[in-house]
């Protein structure tokens, strides 16, 4: 495997340092995306990277591809437009938990249903980091946030269950502690013919960890290690062993009609029969 310095020279723009805080996991997730792209040997000119608004969505600007930093919540429908015009392109969406599941929640579920060939990596740090620590749809019940000073009244989504329920054909989860697994899952997602979601659990020590007394960056990585359970191991475990834990690995994969391929058939039929 290519070393990180070579990867940086090839796939990162000379625009570092990044805006992320010390201890932030976003760099680990972005590196996993880059390693996956490198592993597959994707063409940098036939890969587009699309992001929304928020800390994680700044990743697009650091990467040496055609990159699109869109509006808050809207990365997926922008990506849909690119993919439909460039069916041969790999289109990767980098988004955060607030971006993808709050303001962009409608686009997220409909893209799952539509099964359009995009790979969406959701950087889940359980908080709105850029605006300073407000609760997101993935902040735990009773978790602390600047807008939940008495504890979060909301109940969070299970992002992967949401994606599966909405019809996504590839759903996986890993953490920044499990960076190699994360890379492997993104590789699989990129080769899956359909809408692929990878949830990447990542630490925000400054805006989430501090408010929720989770310790520093290292302690938060250990929390990921101690609370993640490989999905394959789960059937053998007792309910009390699974309490408070979450699954990592490839959680769901099936195959179905993919939107772009289906629409190409529509075009072929209409051009043959219908040109006026």
């Amino acid at each position, binding site marked *: 495997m290519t070393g990180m310095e070579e990867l940086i020279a090839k796939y990162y723009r000379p625009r570092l340092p990044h805006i992320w805080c010390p201890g932030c996991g976003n760099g680990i997730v972005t590196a996993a995306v880059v390693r996956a792209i490198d592993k597959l040997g994707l063409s940098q000119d036939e890969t587009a990277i699309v992001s929304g608004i928020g800390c994680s969505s700044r990743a697009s600007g650091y990467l040496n591809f055609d*990159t*699109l*930093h869109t509006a808050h919540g809207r990365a997926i*429908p922008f990506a849909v437009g690119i993919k*439909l015009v460039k069916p041969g392109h790999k289109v990767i969406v980098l988004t955060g938990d607030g971006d993808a599941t709050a303001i962009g929640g409608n686009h997220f579920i409909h893209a799952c249903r539509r099964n359009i060939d995009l790979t969406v990596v959701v950087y889940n740090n359980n908080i709105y980091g850029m605006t300073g620590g407000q609760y997101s749809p993935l902040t735990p019940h009773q978790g602390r946030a600047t807008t939940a000073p008495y504890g979060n009244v909301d109940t969070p989504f299970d992002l992967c269950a949401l994606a599966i329920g909405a019809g996504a054909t590839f759903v996986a989860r890993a953490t920044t502690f499990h960076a190699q697994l994360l890379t492997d899952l993104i590789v699989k997602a990129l080769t899956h013919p359909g809408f692929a979601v990878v949830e990447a659990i990542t630490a925000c020590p400054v805006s989430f960890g501090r408010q929720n007394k989770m310790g520093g960056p290292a302690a938060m990585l250990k929390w990921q290690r101690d609370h993640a359970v490989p999905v394959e191991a789960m059937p053998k475990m007792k309910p009390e062993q699974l309490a408070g834990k979450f699954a990592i690995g490839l959680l769901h994969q099936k195959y179905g009609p993919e939107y772009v391929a289906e629409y190409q058939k529509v075009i072929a039929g209409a051009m043959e029969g219908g040109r006026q």
Partner: protein
Amino acid sequence: MTHNNAARAVLMQGNQACAEGALAAGARFFAGYPITPSTEVAEMLALRLPQVGGTFIQMEDEIASMAAVIGASLAGAKAMTATSGPGFSLKQELIGYAAMAEVPCVIVNVQRTGPSTGQPTSPAQGDVMQARWGSHGDRGVIALSPASVTECFTVTVEAFNLAEKYRTPVVLLMDEVIGHMREKFVRPDPSALTVVERKKPQQPPGGFLPYKPDADGVPPMAAFGDGYRVHVTGLVHDYTGFPTGSNEVTEELISRLHTKITRNLGDILRYEKIYLDDAETAVVAFGGSARGAYAAVEALRDKGIKAGLFRPITIWPLPEAELMALAAKVKRIVVAEMNYGQYVNEVRRISCGRTEVVSLAKWNNEPITPDEIAAALSR
């Protein structure tokens, strides 16, 4: 063979002519969401786009439609969406994005009575100021308003041409009268149509500055996949396309979003003048309101009253020099519009006391009649 087809007159609806105009302009992508009274544009393009190798998609909402249009345009396609009042409101943030990131696209708004859900099947022109100021922040805006079924075709072509030439979203401000009206339509000969393509970079990728403008104020545009590896953002950005907090860059960029339009008024402004040479009173009207104005002016001329019509087709930016000259010449200007009085304030600002400017505003779901306009002109 083509010529025979082109010469054949058909009965066509305004919304349908708009869809056909988009195809003639080279549009190959449409994303939309059903909404009255614009839905026929989407229905027509769902049928017609794949026949020419293009793509239609009905998105989950109005915002997603606008996002997909911008994405498609960045990927190199001429792209359009169509909506009405509430949908136009929902699209505003991303129309601003397209302005900031300089992404060519056409937004059709077939206006209906508002605010809110209003009267979905009734004509209105209440979105005139929204077309100018709907998205937050300052920017130059181009909005066009056709007044016949034939113009729904030709002005749609021009909307695309201006969008591509100036790298800006262009609003095609129709109304229910124009969108749902059926008239005789003769398809213009394709060879008689001017179709503009966006400027591409003339240099290889290394060192290309994607937001450095040419002398006309417009930067050449590389599509995704062309090898330039551009970065596009809605943040204030410098010539490289990357965000910056610089005050100087902010000032220059926001200025250019205005001046690339205001410096090219001769190319952008379109209007029609009827009987204005010797007119003593004039009506200013556009879109559906111009229909009654034509008839009113004809009727008054039959009676020997010297009335004329100034019909802006480009309603943003305003044809200020023309309106100023008109104000200096006539005794009264009547501004006829299907709203509570919007464009009239612009005409008053421009006429600056040179003549009496009268508002003939109507907001009861009905088009303005020739009699109402004639009465206001000859009062």
